[in-house]
């Protein structure tokens, strides 16, 4: 009989836990006032390809200011884009914020995004928004060559992106070929150089047996620790590490103006066509472009896209930053070939 009692006790405990679980689910992520419900009584859903540390403070501030609750699903940009395509009209998402222009452009092209209000689009320079107004850039970041200053002497630094395929970089390089920003860089390269040249470059990189990572952060960490000589990443990861750790033996190397390796990309946000709360969704995007939010992003070393906010400390102003001159809108058209080429080169 003792056994039965034990079992019943455990079931009671489990049931109690279960009850707790149900309440936690319905609770909003931020414990702000409960006055904040949207018109339809449900929270706004943001699919964020940017990480939690970057996004959550801004979202919390938005909820505090507007009373609109926001639930955020954090995952990779590509995962979320595929998820949205799989969900179709049933998508719970209202807003998608990608870390690059290519994947969100791909969604726009397939009709998953609705046109943004003119006042939102006009907040940022034209080159950092979709030509058809379906996504708007929130911040910009530059592709760079990050290197360990103790392992890579300055004279060895590649003059252009092609030099990275030189056999002297064999086994010394880190890349994240399935990450949104790398994919976007390849879409840019195809626009500038054509598919054949891009294929050659990818095959050259693959032949150099780079270390494959899922994301940029771990590449920069490996370079800082001296476990890796160099990597192809976005500019701000290193700046964040320097802010945390002080002096580190690593630096960003920028390619020259017009080099495909130095694409300056927007992180785009858009509203889903299937959203039943487009008003609130636009409100959220407006807030991401508010002075307060833009300053938050500046503090994390990304380029704010609203004019007059400033430039990350110690960096060139956005207008002077070397970049490949292509239309970010067009990167959506080269997304499919870019993904195919990366796969064919054996990098994904």
């Amino acid at each position, binding site marked *: 009989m003792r056994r039965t009692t034990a079992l019943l006790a455990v079931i009671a405990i489990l049931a109690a836990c279960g009850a707790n679980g149900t309440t936690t689910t319905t609770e909003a992520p931020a414990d702000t006032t409960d006055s904040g419900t949207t018109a339809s009584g449900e929270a706004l859903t943001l699919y964020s390809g940017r990480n939690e540390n970057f996004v959550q403070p801004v979202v919390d501030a938005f909820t505090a200011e507007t009373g609109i609750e926001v639930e955020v699903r954090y995952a990779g940009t590509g995962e979320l884009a595929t998820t949205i395509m799989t969900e179709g009209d049933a998508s719970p998402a209202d807003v998608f914020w990608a870390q690059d222009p290519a994947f969100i452009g791909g969604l726009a092209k397939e009709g998953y995004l609705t046109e943004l209000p003119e006042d939102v689009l006009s907040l940022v320079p034209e080159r950092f928004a979709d030509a058809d107004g379906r996504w708007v850039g929130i911040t910009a970041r530059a592709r760079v060559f990050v290197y360990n200053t103790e392992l890579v002497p300055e004279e060895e630094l590649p003059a252009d992106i092609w030099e990275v395929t030189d056999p002297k970089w064999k086994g010394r390089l880190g890349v994240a070929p399935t990450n949104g920003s790398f994919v976007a860089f390849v879409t840019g390269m195809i626009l500038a150089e054509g598919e054949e040249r891009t294929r050659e470059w990818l095959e050259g990189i693959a032949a150099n047996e780079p270390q494959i990572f899922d994301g940029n952060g771990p590449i920069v960490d490996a370079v800082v620790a001296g476990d890796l000589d160099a990597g192809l990443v976005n500019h701000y990861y290193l700046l964040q590490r320097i802010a945390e750790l002080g002096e580190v033996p690593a630096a960003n190397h920028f390619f020259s103006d017009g080099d495909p390796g130095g694409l300056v990309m927007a992180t785009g946000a858009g509203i889903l066509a299937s959203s039943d709360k487009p008003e609130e969704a636009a409100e959220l995007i407006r807030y991401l472009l508010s002075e307060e939010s833009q300053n938050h992003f500046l503090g994390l070393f990304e380029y704010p896209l609203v004019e007059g906010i400033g430039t990350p400390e110690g960096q060139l102003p956005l207008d002077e930053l070397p970049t490949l001159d292509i239309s970010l809108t067009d990167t959506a058209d080269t997304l499919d070939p870019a993904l*195919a080429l990366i796969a064919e080169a054996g990098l*994904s």
Partner: protein
Amino acid sequence: MTTLAPPAAETAPEPSSPRRRRAPLPLWLLAGALMLPALIPIAYLVWAVVRPGGFDAGGIPAGRLVELFGSTARLMVAVTLTTSILGAATAWLTTRTDLKGARLWSTLLTLPLVIPSYVGALAFLGLSGNDGLLSRALTGMGLQPLPVFSGFWAAWAALSLWNFSYVHLLAVPALRRMDPALEEAARGLGASRWRTFLTVVLPQLRPALLSGMLLVGLYTLSDFGAVSLLRYETFTRAIYTQFRGRLDVTPALFLSGVLVIVALVVVWAEQRARGRAALYAHRPPRRPVVTALRGWRRAAAYGFLGTVVAAALVLPLLTVAWWAIRGLSLGNPVGAVAGDLLRSASVSAVAALITVTAAVPVAVLTVRHASRATGALESVAWSTYSLPHLAVGLGFLVVAVRFIPAIYQSVLLLIVAYVAMFLPQAMSAAQTGLRQVGPSLEEASRSLGVGPMGTLWRVTLPLLGRSLLAGGGIVFLSAMKELPATLLLRPTGFETLAVHVWSASSELFYTDASVAALVLVAISAVPLYLLVARDLHRT
């Protein structure tokens, strides 16, 4: 403790019940219905591959598929062999020798099961590389730092260290329950110790070893966290890469379907290899033969057990704790863990409770009314258990979003997925319990005029209590550790401990990941110790 063991292909007939009652139709319907949730997404995935014109690899080159088969098979074979040798050795040393503290050793050798492979991988990363714990110790002594652990050998070591306990867990009862008379006879006829082991002990151990190898092999096939963090390319990692790297779910579905088919083939092959051997003999009349270890052999045995425990349990926990403490003292940010813990524990507990409840009718059907048809039902259950969680998760995601959008991204769907994936664990525990009890008490109850439901409630369930608790504990543990399906199916904002560890470690926020990992391990250790490890050496 056969909780984790798939049954033999055809169950040996129940000695205590010569007559077999035909199963009532409602029981059949109930058991079939309980199996259904697991079958739907799997059927969908297989259909995605085999339907006419469905062989659409979404542009994945055939050469790539071959490469993936090769790299996955290489890892699976290496890990399976390593764990079976390691697990058989630890089981033998703790049951058949006169080493001191066998029960304590055995508990320590079982506890690595609470370390999910992605936490182990996290520890590997924290140990190696210029900034790693071990490297710092080495450079402190004037030696070279270790390179970052990654690739095949790292994945092999991680999966072997955090899976060999399955083999240990299965081999211990098998070794304890062998009839010593056979070994004594062999020795008496002049066979050497070694020859006795090879020709008498090993064949009797075969079913347990094969079960263990099946569990480990299937786990290796499906592991997602460790191979991703340690950057070794396998099928599951490729599925994830396709899922995130394409604007189309088809290639990922295709690869999942292929992986499902591979897993089914592995289960089938194992059932063939095991043949008709029953898992365990009945309780032996006497204590098993014990080998006295003396001198260097004794020292080497302690050294071996100590090394295994150090590598699989002490070192990873120490590393993770060191990163947590170092990070906290540096003031690194740590995400809130309490909410994650509550969500993980409650959703796992509810899943465990439902799974155990669902397991009872299935177990009653397959044990008390065993027939060829119930054998098939059992095989189906084990086949679903064998499937890679990432593939199952993807199947549930697509099926829910296309056909039942109301439950998409809900706690309900997450629990249904856990129940579907872990039902066989609870079923197996309930079956073991039923077999030990035998039907005579139930028959007595029926003959005294109590109905079938009354008998179930007043006789069978109370007798099954312990087995069900053990089964529930294992399901709870599995659900706490589960990562890939949780990543795909969790409601938005529903972070669990596993998801927390994963997202923090893939961004290399070591402090944050380590704190969450320690909490996860600590909570998982409780049911494992109470329900499994503690009882392993009791008869």
